[in-house]
């Protein structure tokens, strides 16, 4: 799976949780999309379940945009995919 595909899938997951269908890669979740810390936790929990990965708590503050989520998920998946 390339990064574009991953980003597309992550966008679907996030859109469902935050109930916003259209948002840009670099729109800020908190400032632009009304996401709070508990929604961020839901996003992370859903991603962990979908991809069977574990995103450590210290990465949570890094996750501010779709681009950030994609980067963190790719980094966490890297060791598994080789």
């Amino acid at each position, binding site marked *: 799976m390339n990064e574009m595909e991953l980003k597309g899938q992550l966008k679907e997951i996030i859109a469902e949780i935050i109930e916003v269908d259209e948002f840009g890669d670099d729109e800020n979740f908190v400032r632009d999309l009304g996401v*709070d*810390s*508990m929604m961020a*936790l*839901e996003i992370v*929990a859903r991603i962990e379940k979908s991809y069977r990965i574990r995103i450590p*708590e210290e990465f*949570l503050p890094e996750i501010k945009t779709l681009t950030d989520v994609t980067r963190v998920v790719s980094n966490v998946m890297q060791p598994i995919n080789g």
Partner: protein
Amino acid sequence: MTTTIKLGFDQVRRLLPQAYPFCLVDVVEELTPGERIVARKNISGNEWMFPGHFPDKAIYPGVLLIEGMAQTSILLFKGAEDQDADFEGATFMIASVKSRFLAPVVPGDQVRYTCEVVKVVSTGGVMECTATVDGNVVAKADLTFAVQR
């Protein structure tokens, strides 16, 4: 090796922040710290909600099933002795609920709540919960809660 904990009603009500008439769990049947809990509530016709819900047909309110799942989740964190200190004095607040009700619960039913941890961090968590009666799922919910210390 993981230990399984059981809790009686007196322990349950000591651990829960809620009190009568809002203690909506009777006993904990099994608790695996940090992972999973199964609790039970017997629904009696002589309970405070039935005169109003509804006057001619007693149905245990769906919102109270959700509350039962939330209280069961609290017990998962407060009922494990080694974790007790972490959550001592902590306030649990529901941030979001995604739920589905599949069958009505009525007096005489024995509701079993099963809650599993999806993710927990220092500020909150996400739980996957089901309520069953005689092995059939009557409600399920994903709960997100915030922990304030």
